[in-house]
């Protein structure tokens, strides 16, 4: 039981998960789950109570039972007590101040990360304003590497997302070429296939690999299909760079995705064993998003932001190259409008970074959400300031297969320009080699006189 007295009114919160839900900024998904504060004042009462809570309480009062959930067991059993020692004496409110402190630099934040549980990250997140989420995330550097180096300070990478409604190889190739000519694709060239078909996925992998090899592009490829499909593709000898999987913050929600920790381990080992990585051995790509546990009836009465942070704990042992929150994809019943999507995007990026993950964000919305391109511009800019590792690059921001709007190649160029951010260094050097980058690192228009650019355009008909 947690409580707060405000001018004679006593607010009680039966357990930690109720307290966390009550302290969370309002969002439609928690309301849908019947969670959250009943009034604006109760929400602040919950924040007062949360601020006074010692961090180690979060290791004892568990939001999802240890006995029935392997994600909780993973969090508790792998908690790094030595790393936690530096912050173990703090309350959640003091932890916020510690994070913001000018004495807390990148090195200390990196050192403490293994001692931070997702519930600690979620708890402090609920006490933080948007500017706090940006200021702290900006201090944290998380790098990862496969054929290039991602997450370095002042760099912003882009996942090139060349989806096509029927997985038409020539159509996919057209979007890949367009994106590369716009200086995008350093995070990964990653296709969401329209079907579960293994032969199609193999064809897509071979297409991307062929373009990459012929143009000698220092990047990696991925077909975002179920992990069991990728294991099958590996067995077939398809050119798999990264293994992808959607993950969530409870065992039951992961079961809804058809995965568990053992299966993810198996996929991680199989992908590493391919030995296709060159500069680093980060071979996994995970996607997450607030609301996925509730939509699978697997939320255990826990608010969606806390569960989202737990998804990052699922990702952590597999040392991924990329983790991204597909923040506005799930729809308005979970994040109603631009304000809620913006807040959630900043929360997810902050919590992931605090836990030591190479976070990107799919800045996006669906057409039944109350959001538009201006909201996306805002969140993209805020995340650029916060130091997001990567964002999506979709032709014209319009994903013609998944039917939602994400960020475009143009958006990536905009945010790199206004914030002085650059592509991954190896990819940046490639852009210079093929004559695509001009003064100040700006991307030049297509130039037929450059043989490599002509060769790239010519791949359209050799896919």
């Amino acid at each position, binding site marked *: 039981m947690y409580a707060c007295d405000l001018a004679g009114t006593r607010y009680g919160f039966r357990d930690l998960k109720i307290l966390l839900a009550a302290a969370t900024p309002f969002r439609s998904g928690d309301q849908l789950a019947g969670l959250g504060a009943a009034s604006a004042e109760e929400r602040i009462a919950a924040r007062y109570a949360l601020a006074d809570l010692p961090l180690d309480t979060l290791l004892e009062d568990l939001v999802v039972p240890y006995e029935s959930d392997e994600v909780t067991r993973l969090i508790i059993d792998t908690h790094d007590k030595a790393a936690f020692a530096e912050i173990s004496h703090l309350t959640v409110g003091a932890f916020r101040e510690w994070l913001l402190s000018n004495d807390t630099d990148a090195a200390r934040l990196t050192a403490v990360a293994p001692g931070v549980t997702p519930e600690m990250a979620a708890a402090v997140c609920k006490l933080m304003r948007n500017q706090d989420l940006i200021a702290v995330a900006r201090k944290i550097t998380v790098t990862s590497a496969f054929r290039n180096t991602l997450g370095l300070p002042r760099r912003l990478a882009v996942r090139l997302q060349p989806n096509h409604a029927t997985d038409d190889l020539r159509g*996919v*190739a057209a*979007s890949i070429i367009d994106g590369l000519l716009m200086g995008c694709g350093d995070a990964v060239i990653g296709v969401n296939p329209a079907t579960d078909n293994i032969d199609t996925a193999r064809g897509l992998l071979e297409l991307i690999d062929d373009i990459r090899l012929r143009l000698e592009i220092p990047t990696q490829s991925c077909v975002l299909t179920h992990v069991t499909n990728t294991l099958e593709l590996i067995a077939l000898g398809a050119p798999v760079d990264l293994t992808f999987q959607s993950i969530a913050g409870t065992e039951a929600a992961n079961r809804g995705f058809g995965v568990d920790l053992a299966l993810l381990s198996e996929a991680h080992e199989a992908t590493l064993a391919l030995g296709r990585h060159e500069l680093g051995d980060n071979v996994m790509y995970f996607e997450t998003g607030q609301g996925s546990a509730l939509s699978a009836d697997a939320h255990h009465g826990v608010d969606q932001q806390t569960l989202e942070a737990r998804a990052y704990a699922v990702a952590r042992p597999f040392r991924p190259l990329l983790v991204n929150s597909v923040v506005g994809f*799930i729809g308005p*019943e979970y994040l109603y409008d631009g304000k809620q999507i913006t807040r959630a995007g900043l929360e997810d990026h902050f919590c992931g970074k605090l836990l030591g993950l190479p976070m990107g964000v799919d800045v996006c919305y669906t057409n*039944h959400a109350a959001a538009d391109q201006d909201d996306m511009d805002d969140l993209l800019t805020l995340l650029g300031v916060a130091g997001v590792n990567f964002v999506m690059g979709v032709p014209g921001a319009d994903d013609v297969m998944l*039917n939602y709007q994400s960020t475009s190649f143009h958006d990536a160029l905009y945010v790199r320009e206004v914030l002085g951010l650059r592509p991954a260094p190896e990819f940046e050097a490639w852009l210079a080699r093929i004559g695509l980058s001009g003064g100040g690192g700006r991307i030049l228009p297509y130039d037929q006189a450059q043989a490599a650019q002509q060769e790239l355009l010519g791949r*359209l008909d050799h896919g």
Partner: protein
Amino acid sequence: MADTPVGRGDPLDVLRRATPARVALGRAGQGLPTAPMLAFQLAHARARDAVRAELDPERMIRALARPAIVVSSAAADRAAYLADPNLGRRLAPGTPALPWGEYDLAIVVADGLSATALHAHAAPVAAALLARLADLRIAPMVVARQARVAIGDPIGQGLGARLVVVLIGERPGLSAADSLGAYLTWDPRPGRRDSERNCVSNIREPGGLAPAPAADKIAWLVRAALRLGFTGVDLKDREEIVPRLDLAGARPSGARRIFRSDPGL
């Protein structure tokens, strides 16, 4: 003025012809030229209008050219409908009992996320479907407002139908705001899971699955469900053996596995 050429003579024109995606848009500085920027805004505006559009039941019944029962879900308005999908899956409190009978099939036309789609395509699809299934015992048609797919469960149960087909407006995309979906559920009753349904999606003309081939596909699934006594993933697997009606440039049509996280269900 845009910094890069767009149009005739542009070597990147080959990209535009290769995909419906918005490639080779040109640039103004780092940003979009005005024309493609406005084209995007127009597509989004149409999609937003479609999401907000209200179903006009009298107009719908006139288009269907047959008597129909009009019901509402438990969602009082569009805002409530969008915020809580469960409301759109239940009938409004106080809905009168539906006329029960020994029916093979009930057809529900529901606004879903695009009343625009319903007004554009539901009547021709329903007419084509009825023409193909004239030998079946078909329940009175039902028009449902502020409805999700699962509204077909209490309606089908109330009518006593063995199978329900819900024709419903799909979540609008930028390429189409008027796409209709057809969802089939065997032995409809509240609590049916989405994996127990079959779906034919992207029904629209032009640009998608036209009403006649859509009705062919739905009728095939109706007869298969009545013969086999189920709908859902297993029926989908068998359905794969018939020729696919996928259209170049369109979303994959035909029965597909449905996940709970499918936005807009």
